[in-house]
């Protein structure tokens, strides 16, 4: 019977397997002396840091906390908690000044003011997608803004506004990656990537931002499985209990609201089912949706893969350079 059991793994065995892979990749293949992990306070980066510490030793892992103006207060606190629980060194790098001087915040606000002229620096915003479960509506991003007095407004984006807002926001992930590579270069460490399978598959990362790394130890794991490893590795309970967030825009939002059709538990099962050609009727029963809704989720999986194909492409060349 198809159920969430298909995603159950032997956490101890998988931890050992990943740790062995990390040692081989970081030391033997990359000739690096340790690992840098950007810690967001979320489950994925916490698990990656724990795996790296398990594989290489806690004194060979550097955790970076990289808050900016729009970061949640929890992110810094929980990132620090993860580092402390692992006994790894942690450095706080406030990337807000770098984002300011790069024009990240100014360009975000400029884009938003094209649609909401009254938007100011002390307002908050987020992007969201409507639920594809409710009907046949096309999946179009919306912008929600909130004034300091609490007034909320939601508007449909235009293509230029959407592109500029996303491009400006992408500075955050890219500046974080630049910072990770600074520390990796000075320590001769490798940079760990923290995407899980769902994020990687569905293009939920920034090209040359959080999508860039020297090794990605959990990219083959469904998010549900990352949580299983988190429990096995002793990641603090508060981190394990926290719903996945984007922590990218100034208004709080879940990953489901921003990008995925469903909460990760059901999204993982649908992705697994799609990858293994499980009939929609059987999937529907397991995820408590109608077969029509499952079909919409499957179509959305395909659509996102197609739309984010560009993010996965390495640099294209006229001809290969076989010597390297």
């Amino acid at each position, binding site marked *: 019977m198809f159920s969430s059991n298909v995603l159950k793994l032997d956490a101890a065995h998988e931890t050992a397997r990943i740790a062995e892979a990390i040692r081989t990749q970081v030391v033997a293949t990359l000739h690096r002396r340790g690992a840098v992990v950007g810690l967001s306070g979320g489950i994925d980066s916490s698990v990656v840091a724990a795996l790296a510490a398990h594989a290489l030793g806690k004194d060979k892992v550097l955790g970076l906390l990289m808050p900016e103006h729009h970061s949640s207060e929890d992110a810094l606190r929980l990132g620090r908690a993860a580092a402390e629980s692992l006994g790894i060194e942690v450095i706080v790098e406030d990337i807000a000044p770098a984002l300011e001087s790069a024009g990240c915040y100014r360009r975000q606000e400029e884009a938003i003011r094209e649609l909401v002229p009254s938007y100011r620096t002390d307002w908050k915003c987020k992007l969201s997608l409507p639920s594809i479960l409710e009907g046949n509506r096309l999946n179009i991003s919306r912008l929600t803004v909130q004034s300091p007095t609490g007034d909320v407004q939601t508007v*449909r984006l235009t293509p230029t506004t959407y592109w500029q807002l996303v491009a400006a926001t992408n500075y955050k992930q890219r500046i974080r990656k630049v910072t990770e590579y600074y520390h990796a270069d000075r320590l001769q460490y490798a940079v760990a990537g923290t995407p899980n399978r769902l994020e990687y598959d569905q293009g939920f990362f920034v090209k040359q931002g959080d999508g860039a790394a020297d090794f990605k130890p959990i990219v083959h794991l469904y998010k549900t499985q990352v949580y299983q490893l988190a429990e096995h590795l002793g990641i603090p309970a508060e981190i394990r209990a926290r719903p996945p967030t984007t922590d990218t825009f100034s208004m709080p939002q879940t990953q489901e609201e921003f990008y995925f059709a469903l909460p990760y538990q059901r999204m993982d099962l649908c992705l697994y089912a799609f990858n293994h050609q499980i009939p929609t009727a059987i999937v529907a029963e397991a995820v408590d949706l109608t077969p029509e809704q499952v079909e919409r989720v499957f179509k959305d999986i395909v*659509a996102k893969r197609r739309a984010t194909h560009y993010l996965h492409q390495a640099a294209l060349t006229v001809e290969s350079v076989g010597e390297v």
Partner: protein
Amino acid sequence: MTIRNQVRAFIIENFYVADPGGLADGESLLERGIIDSTGVLEVISFLEQHFGVEVEDGELTPENLDSVANISTFVASKLSDDRTELAAEAAQ
């Protein structure tokens, strides 16, 4: 130029269509990978600016926007509604 030809020209000029001559009017632009969700925003923007029609949230459906034929029918219907509304206002 007919609405259909204007819509077809917009799609071919603004998105990558591997075989423009082979693009059937009824073919799903989303399923063929010609447009994605941001592409839909571009189509909406084109309809609003080029034809002067307003696309309501409830009209954001594949039946209205996911093929050259559907888009053309949708635009024609909107323009016809607008003309009917103008005529009614003029008669008052």
